[in-house]
């Protein structure tokens, strides 16, 4: 590097010096290019590896209709058959309930922080959101366990899982919504005020519609992340092989716990199911991401 700089700083009085300087820069350009492409390729290795191996080992499971319609009820690790419908609907149901709880809280918090928050309270709220962002999922799960089971004496039910997931999802929604609201130009708010539109109406009719697709993208990406969380499920929502719909009673199977269930089995049918469940989870998260991108396309602020 120092040799290159030396060539560069040698004052360019004639043509050959000019050439030397530009070739040095070209070399550095090539080097930087190589490093960047190399890093990109390196980052792709685990991604491609995971995708290819889950596809190869679990792909055939997803091809049968049974996988999408049947549960594992009455099927032992030794036997082939059954499906993942119980786990898929469990994951989707819990994600839906989590979203229903965390989206209003998260979006309203973001609106407060961007549109109203001044002074100490806003600083404290913002700081708390930062802390919440850093809470590991296992800590959130144990907190809900301590509250739900130890303090209140309730049973471990799927609803407790969604509470822990809500705790994890709120900060991501607050942060992404905040960013989208900040992108809405202040001029639009002023244009609305100047028409004699009250502030709350300006927020609901001008600011939120302008940022809408961005907010939805953020929510979908947050949801995709929360779906893969496993710690709250293991602690608060033990696996079951049968279909379950009741959030407040009994157990409910989910994809992460289904993977965890058969993870230690050496029998081929169980191994196939683990890979199939993993691929299904990846597929659902991937579809949510795609949906997020698709909605983001129509973003009014970019």
């Amino acid at each position, binding site marked *: 590097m120092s040799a290159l700089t030396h060539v560069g700083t040698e004052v360019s009085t004639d043509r050959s010096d000019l050439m030397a300087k530009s070739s040095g820069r070209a070399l550095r350009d090539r080097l930087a290019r190589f490093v960047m492409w190399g890093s990109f390729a390196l980052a792709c290795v685990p991604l491609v590896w995971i995708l290819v191996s889950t596809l190869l080992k679990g792909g055939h499971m997803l091809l049968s209709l049974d996988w999408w319609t049947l549960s594992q009820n009455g099927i032992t690790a030794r036997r082939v058959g059954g499906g993942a419908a119980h786990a898929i609907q469990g994951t989707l149901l819990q994600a839906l309930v989590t979203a229903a709880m965390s989206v209003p809280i998260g979006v309203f918090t973001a609106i407060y922080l961007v549109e109203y928050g001044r002074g100490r309270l806003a600083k404290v709220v913002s700081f708390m959101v930062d802390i919440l962002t850093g809470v590991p999922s296992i800590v959130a799960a144990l907190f809900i366990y301590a509250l739900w089971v130890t303090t209140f004496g309730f049973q471990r039910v799927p609803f407790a899982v969604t509470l822990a997931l809500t705790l994890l999802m709120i900060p991501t929604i607050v942060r992404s919504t905040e960013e989208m609201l900040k992108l809405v130009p202040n*001029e639009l708010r002023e*244009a609305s005020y100047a*028409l*004699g539109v009250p502030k709350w109406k300006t927020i609901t*009719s001008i600011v939120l519609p302008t940022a809408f697709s961005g907010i939805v993208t953020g929510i979908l990406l947050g949801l995709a992340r929360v779906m893969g969380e496993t710690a709250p499920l293991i602690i608060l929502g033990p696996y079951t092989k049968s279909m379950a719909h009741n959030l407040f009673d009994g157990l409910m199977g989910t994809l992460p716990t289904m993977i965890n269930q058969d993870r230690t089995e050496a029998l081929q049918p169980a191994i196939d199911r683990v890979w199939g469940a993993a691929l299904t989870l990846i597929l659902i998260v991937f579809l949510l991401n795609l949906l997020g991108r698709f909605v983001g396309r129509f973003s*009014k602020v970019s």
Partner: protein
Amino acid sequence: MAKRIDVKDLDIYYGDFKAVEGVSMTVEPRSVTAFIGPSGCGKSTVLRTLNRMHEVIPGGRVDGKVMLDDQDLYAPSMDPVAVRRTVGMVFQRPNPFPTMSIKDNVAAGLRLNGIKDKKRLDETVEKSLRGANLWSEVKDRLDKPGAGLSGGQQQRLCIARAIAVNPQVLLMDEPCSALDPISTLAIEDLINELKSQYTIVIVTHNMQQAARVSDQTAFFNLKATGQPGRLVEVGSTQKIFSNPEQQATEDYISGRFG
């Protein structure tokens, strides 16, 4: 329906910083008043106090009186939202609402204030667009996004949006500074027409524009760097541009300034 504005001993603050000091002036109904002066002297700030937009900025507050006919805009009983319905504003950069069509942009002021009568909205949209000299250009694409228009058309759309709520006074903050000469001419023609119905106050950096469109001109300047801005001189446009009383005004309009 146009109203007179009386400003008395107006001091304007951003937090503890006094931005403008001791402004007193009168704006006659159905006339155009131009605010001129160097950047940062407080012209826009004064303009924004006339419809209580100044206090939207955190820390913004004023001392003194702004009277609209016989009503004090800063009386404790005054609702700033109601004031802004009476005193409309057009901004420097055209800012149509990006999520709305041309029609919805014009109807926004009425609709967001709870008027749902479709016939009345349609009538107001046409009347306002005609008033802003934009009707013939957009009448076939009222449902297309307002952001798809050219800069000059967008600014006329914003004027249509402002007059749709039927204000008494129209404030314009450098409405042509982002526009080309042709669009500027269109807006100036429009101002000439609008003044038969509205009291208009316009901030401009373009002195030819002030001379062309206004009946009265107010020259603002800083006392000194870091000091608050103040109103140096106000008078009929003809007098300010031909025979001003203050040396500073003469220096500024003849280009010998600073």
